[in-house]
């Protein structure tokens, strides 16, 4: 099945710094989402971005589907940005014996210190 790899696995920042998170996927996808899991465990939708670029405040995301990667940018990070960031994809093709389903990467833990 499709592989979703996120990097870096962990990141520690000082408040105000910028960061870029990367999601690589091994096959074509129909859709891609970025989630933030906050310290209380909630999975919050950040972006639904099968291709192109979107911005929401200090966050923006770019997916280049033809090159099989997506980037999440966090600018002027704040302590509330801490948590785990997940990339998830809908594979375009169903592999033999498999089924279409939303596949998650292992996540990237971000810690923003004051």
């Amino acid at each position, binding site marked *: 099945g499709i592989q979703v790899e996120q990097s870096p696995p962990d990141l520690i920042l000082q408040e105000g710094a910028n960061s870029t998170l990367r999601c690589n996927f091994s096959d074509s996808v129909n859709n891609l989402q970025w989630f933030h899991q906050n310290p209380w*465990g909630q999975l919050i939708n950040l972006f639904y971005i099968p291709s192109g670029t979107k911005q929401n405040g200090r966050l923006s995301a770019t997916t280049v589907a033809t090159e099989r990667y997506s980037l999440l940018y966090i600018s002027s990070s704040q302590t509330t940005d801490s948590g785990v960031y997940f990339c998830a994809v809908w594979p375009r093709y169903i592999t033999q014996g498999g089924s279409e*389903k*939303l596949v998650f990467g292992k996540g990237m833990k971000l810690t923003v210190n004051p």
Partner: protein
Amino acid sequence: DARVTQTPRDKVTEMGQEVTMRCQPILGHNTVFWYRQTMMQGLELLAYFRNRAPLDDSGMPKDRFSAEMPDATLATLKIQPSEPRDSAVYFCASGFGVAEAFFGQGTRLTVV
């Protein structure tokens, strides 16, 4: 404010007891997922429904877990009998087709 609702939020039970977790998907969504999250395994897909029909439950231990959608507004995940290794946070998510999926707040299950 449309959201996925899961109950209960927390559940502590003794080994061997039956556990039922419930999920109300967002109205109009036809796709429902059950995921389990642990420190060791991360987010694992347990079961996945489209239009109330199960499409994939390969991630679910069949001997003790069962997932159903009795109607379009309710999905259930049952564990019988529960074991300490089932302790985890169980998430339900819903979406429409392969469009954006939204997660509930999860059920934190502790089996002692």
